[in-house]
C-alpha cells in the first residue's frame, strides 16, 4: 500500500507553529539567562578609613589585617586603585594576572594595582607569585576580613576605587582587557 505523501504546503503549515515555538523558547531562554547576567548585586557599602599606610613595595607580599588594608587604601587616595582578590587555586586568577601586571606598568604613577590573596595558604600564594614573576604589590588577607568586608562572592573579583576612595566598580570573575582598560581610563578621567 502506498502512503500518501504530504504536499509541500502541508509540511510548510506544520513547520510554522513549530518554528514559532522554537523562536519563543530561544528568546525566552536567552532573555532569562541574559537578565540573570545583568542583575548584578549592588556595590558593597565599604569606605576605607583610618590612618594612611604606605603602599607595600613592588614585588612584596606581606600579611595585613583589614585595618592595615584600609590604611593602604587611604594612603593612596588621590589616584584610582584597582584591588584584585585572588587565590593560588583559582585558574582565572592566574590567567588575568599578566594583564594586571601590564596595567601596573602602563599606569605606573597614575593608578595603583594591588593584589590581595585571600582564602589561601600563604606559602602557596607566595610561591604562586614567584612563579608568575609579578612586580605589582600584593598582600595576604590574614583573617579573611578583607574579603568579607568587600562582599566577595567569586574568585577572582576586581574592585576599582575612585581617587576619593569610593568603590566605582566590581567585576566578578575574570576581567577582560577591554573592561580593565575602560574602567581605569574612566577612573583617571
Amino acid at each position, binding site marked *: 500500500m502506498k502512503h500518501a505523501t504530504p504536499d509541500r504546503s502541508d509540511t510548510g503549515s506544520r*513547520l510554522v507553529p513549530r*518554528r514559532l515555538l*522554537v*523562536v519563543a523558547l*530561544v528568546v525566552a*531562554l*536567552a532573555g532569562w*539567562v*541574559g537578565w*540573570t*547576567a*545583568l542583575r*548584578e548585586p549592588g556595590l558593597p557599602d565599604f569606605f576605607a578609613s583610618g590612618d594612611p599606610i604606605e603602599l607595600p613595595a613592588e614585588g612584596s607580599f606581606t600579611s595585613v589585617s583589614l585595618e592595615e588594608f584600609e590604611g593602604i587604601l587611604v594612603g593612596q587616595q588621590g589616584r584610582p586603585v584597582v584591588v584584585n582578590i585572588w587565590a593560588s587555586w583559582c*585558574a*582565572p586568577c*592566574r*590567567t*588575568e594576572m*599578566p*594583564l594586571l601586571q*601590564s*596595567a601596573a*606598568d*602602563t599606569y605606573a604613577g597614575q593608578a595603583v594595582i594591588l593584589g590581595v590573596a585571600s582564602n589561601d595558604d600563604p606559602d602557596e600564594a607566595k610561591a604562586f607569585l614567584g*612563579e608568575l614573576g609579578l612586580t605589582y604589590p600584593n598582600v595576604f588577607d590574614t583573617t579573611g576580613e578583607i574579603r568579607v568586608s568587600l562582599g566577595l*562572592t*567569586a574568585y577572582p573579583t576586581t574592585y*576599582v576605587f575612585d581617587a576619593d576612595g569610593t568603590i*566605582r*566598580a*566590581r*567585576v*566578578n*570573575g*575574570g576581567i*577582560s*582587557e*577591554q*573592561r*580593565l*582598560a*575602560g*574602567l*581605569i*581610563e*574612566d577612573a583617571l578621567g
Partner: protein
Amino acid sequence: MIDYGLLASMIIAFGVPSMLAWWWPLDDAPVSAPSDEPAGFLDVTLGPAFAGLAVGRLTTLALDDPNSIGSLSDMLIIRSGVEFWPGVAAAAVVVLWAERRAGLPHLSHPAALVPLAMVGYAAYEAACIFRDGCFGPDSEIGLQPPGVSSRMFPMGWLMAAALIVAAVAVRALASRVRSRSVVVAAATFAVAGVRAIASIWLPHVGDGLTRQHVTSIVIAATAGVVLTVVTASAATSRA
C-alpha cells in the same frame, strides 16, 4: 560560578543562525539526517565549534599560562580566554574533514556555512551587553558600561552590523560565483577586517597593538592576497 553573560552570548550566537538557517538552508550539509528535513545549523556546527573552543583555549593557555595545560578544570574555564583565529582554523579543519568524509566537492560545505557562521559571530558580538558591557570610544550616543561614568559607542554592535552586511554580501557572492575559494576567502577577509578595524577603538592596556589586533591584521592581509589570487584564477579559467 556560572558565567551567565557568556552563556547568554552562546545561546544567542547559536540560536540566531540556527533560526536563520530556515531561510538560508545548508543544502550541502555533510550529515545524514534521519528525517526528510535537511540538516540544521546546529547539526553541522556543534562538532567544529567544540574543536574550535578546545584549540582556541589551548592556544591561549600555551601563550599566557603554559603551567595550566594538563589541568582539565583550568582548561575548561573558557572565559579566561580563547584565541579567535586558531579556534576558527580548528573549526574549519573539522568542517573540511566532515565534507571529505561525506564525499562532497572541496570547499562546498564551508562556502555554504560561512554566511551563517558570520551571522552567529555577529550575534555573539551584539550580545556584548550581557558580558563585559559594550565598550568603545567615548560618545554622546551610546551605552554606559557598568562602572563607567561616561557613555561609549558600542563597538560590539557596530561590528555586528558590519558582519551582518558582510554575511549578506558573501551569501550573494556564493550564489553568483562558481569558485568556492573566492567565497571562503571573502568571508575570512571580511571578518578579519571588521575585527582589525574595531580593535582600533576598543579600550586596551598600553600603547601597543593587542594580540587580537595584530592577528586580525595578519589574517586580513593574508585573506586579501588569497582573495585576489583566487579571483584572478577564477576569472582566467572562465575566460
